């Protein structure tokens, strides 16, 4: 399925393979990495960002597309919603049906709370389902939570909030235990030892996996557990605004039935925002590895209600998105491909960088190669080679089918056998490093009974996230949020619900001259092509 021009370049990759396999490419120094990021990482392109004009983060920058949503009005501004007759009345309302939301719901239920999930698509339609490579936890004898802390803190440019990172690494082994006891099938050796590998930027092999369906295996198990517990899940229903009371607490949310267009009201003593990421906003025109619903809704709801954002200007571009063929453009090629030994190689067959630098560094190096004419041209841009046949040479025939079957299947659909030929990759918009700010207990600081978990949180990873720390954070912070929300619900007395904050927000927009910006949250990306 490759073009003749691509096949010519493949010959150069094959010609250097034996020599490359004898030498490990040098890792960059801290100075080299810093210069590379400044020159090529999309976070350093000022034209991709704008200043936030209203709200608690006023004066800070955010991606253009997110700023546009923050500068938009509530769709409820001119609606008459009766908040006194809730359709649902619960202890804990979980907004979002991904890994964090499901974990939170299970733990809240375990703690005896009356909990429900609302989600705008189906439970499990989430980035969790698409996580391929694995989940980190320092549970091997040569490793420790302290080493994990160091790797994540350095990989995130020393910007992670220590109290959040502490929880992440200290509760990681228990997250693995919990998942295993729920029945997640981790890759294990015959003696029960977890099969673990490196990820970019790890100093110990602590990546646990379930082939390359790691997130899918975790998500379908959590979903099954939610359903077994008969926790109510209201699907195809979006939270479009939080409601508040005179004490500054949240009292629930206004929901939108995505199919009928009707509004519903949910009242809750505690609310957990677990709405995930923002890849479908396509920052700077990048394709994305994210699921259809990743439109930053929770950030918009939370921000409008007064919860601050943190690191909203740092985005993760996964180095290896599909560059070719166009049908799967932007889809994720798991980092595990590099963990298993595949090198990144430019069009001349040169291994221009170590394959397991952190994601921001690795992505920047690919962008540099392509910008300097060392990339392979494709119909939609350009890319570099990921030399997958090396995996079979290093670990034996059949390794690709056994360890990364999803990747093999995805490419075989288009006539490309990655066991025999390398594949073309280019960075894809993958993860929102920033999000709503929480304290070590999982609660937002501004609103006492509002919690955030999963990708919607900012500060756990700092300004770059390591592979395998996101599947970990949704479990660790999801579980914590569920427990904390259930406990807090016992002490909360709610006042009368109102939507005064959206009126105040509209006023602020108007004063800033921004009242024409549109409505948010976005809910679904606008992909439909209309002739007029």
């Amino acid at each position, binding site marked *: 399925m490759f073009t003749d021009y691509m096949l010519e370049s493949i010959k150069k990759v094959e010609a250097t393979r034996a020599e490359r396999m004898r030498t490990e490419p040098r890792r960059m120094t801290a100075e080299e990495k810093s210069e590379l990021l400044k020159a090529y990482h999309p976070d350093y392109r000022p034209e991709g960002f704008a200043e936030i004009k209203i709200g608690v983060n006023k004066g800070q920058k955010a991606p253009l597309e997110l700023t546009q949503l923050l500068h938009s009005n509530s769709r409820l501004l001119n609606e008459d919603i009766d908040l006194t007759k809730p359709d649902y009345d619960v202890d804990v309302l979980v907004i979002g049906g991904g890994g964090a939301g499901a974990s939170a719901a299970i733990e809240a239920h375990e703690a005896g709370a009356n909990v429900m999930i609302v989600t705008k698509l189906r439970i499990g339609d989430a980035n969790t389902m698409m996580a391929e490579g694995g989940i980190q936890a320092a549970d091997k004898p040569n490793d420790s939570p302290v080493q994990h802390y160091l790797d994540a803190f350095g990989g995130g440019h020393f910007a992670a909030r220590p109290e959040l990172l502490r929880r992440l690494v200290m509760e990681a082994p228990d997250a693995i*235990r919990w998942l295993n006891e729920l*029945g997640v*099938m*981790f890759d294990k050796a015959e003696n029960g030892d977890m099969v673990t590998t490196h990820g970019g930027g790890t100093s110990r092999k602590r990546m646990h996996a379930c082939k390359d369906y790691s997130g899918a295996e975790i998500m379908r198990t959590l979903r099954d557990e939610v359903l077994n517990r008969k926790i109510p899940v209201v699907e195809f229903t979006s939270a479009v605004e939080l409601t508040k009371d005179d004490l500054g607490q949240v009292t629930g949310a206004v929901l939108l039935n995505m199919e009928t267009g009707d509004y519903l009201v949910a009242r809750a003593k505690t609310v957990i925002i677990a709405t995930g990421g923002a890849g479908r906003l396509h920052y700077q025109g990048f394709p994305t590895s994210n699921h259809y619903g990743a439109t930053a809704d929770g950030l918009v709801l939370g921000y409008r209600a007064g919860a601050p954002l943190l690191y909203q200007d740092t985005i993760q571009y996964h180095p290896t998105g599909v560059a070719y063929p166009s049908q799967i453009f932007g889809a994720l090629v798991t980092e595990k491909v590099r963990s298993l030994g595949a090198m990144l190689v430019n069009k001349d067959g040169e291994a221009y960088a170590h394959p397991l630098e952190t994601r921001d560094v690795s992505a920047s190096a690919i962008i540099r190669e392509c910008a300097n004419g060392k990339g392979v041209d494709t119909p939609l841009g350009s890319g570099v080679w990921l030399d997958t046949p090396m995996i079979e040479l290093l670990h034996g025939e059949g390794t690709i089918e056994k360890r990364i079957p*999803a990747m093999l299947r995805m490419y075989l659909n288009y006539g490309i056998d990655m066991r025999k030929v390398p594949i073309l990759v280019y960075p894809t918009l993958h993860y929102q490093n920033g999000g709503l700010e929480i304290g070590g207990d999982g609660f937002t600081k501004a609103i006492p009974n509002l919690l955030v978990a999963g990708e919607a949180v900012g500060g756990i990873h700092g300004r770059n996230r390591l592979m395998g720390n996101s599947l970990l954070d949704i479990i660790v912070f999801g579980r914590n949020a569920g427990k904390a929300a259930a406990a807090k619900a016992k002490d909360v007395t709610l006042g009368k619900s109102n939507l005064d904050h959206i009126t105040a927000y509209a006023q602020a927009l108007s004063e800033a001259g921004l009242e024409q910006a549109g409505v948010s949250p976005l809910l*679904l990306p606008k992909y439909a*092509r209309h002739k007029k």
Partner: protein
Amino acid sequence: MENLVNVYFFGKRYQVPGDLTIMTAMEYAGYTLSRGCGCRHGFCGACATIYRIKGCNELKTCLACQTQVQEGMYIASIPFFPTDKRAYEIKDLKPNQQVMMELYPEIYSCIGCNACTKACTQSLNVMQYIAYAQRGELEKCAEESFDCVSCGCCSVRCPAEISHPMVGLLARRLTGKYIAPESQHVTQRVAEINRGEYDAMIEQIMQKPISEMQELYNNRDIEK
């Protein structure tokens, strides 16, 4: 002009570029999807689709996000299929043949037609994993069904009305929880953390100034 092909969404003809997937072709035609669209990368099973090529008798199943359009495709998405999941408490189950008999007895009504396997969008041997489940070979059922994305195309086509993805899921949970050997190193590390053995060290590293952390990070040894 790019190469256009004729496709029929729910019987209505549209002309779309031939290099699109069924999903992107629907969007090209003007559809805004909510049902029948999930991860868009072949992992979630939301976009189960059934189609027939004009002039051919054979019905085919696929994931709309992973399948390129062809000339003359008659396409219907399956936005929801009522698979029958049984509720259970995983901690009360035992990993044996009995559990399948009790929770999914209809698997023994399989007539061996292999329609499930033919319908599988992941090219799994579905009938084989149902056979393993019948015999109580849960680990084999788990392995064989592992790449299932629960799109439900197998169940749509099954004359015995089996909810295959649910059977595979039960086998995998039982295998992960009960049959796979315990990971001693995980159990031990959890116990060490619970005993507070890392508390002092983690407190210490949290307090270090950035310059010292940079030094530690840039000079840490990396396992080969």
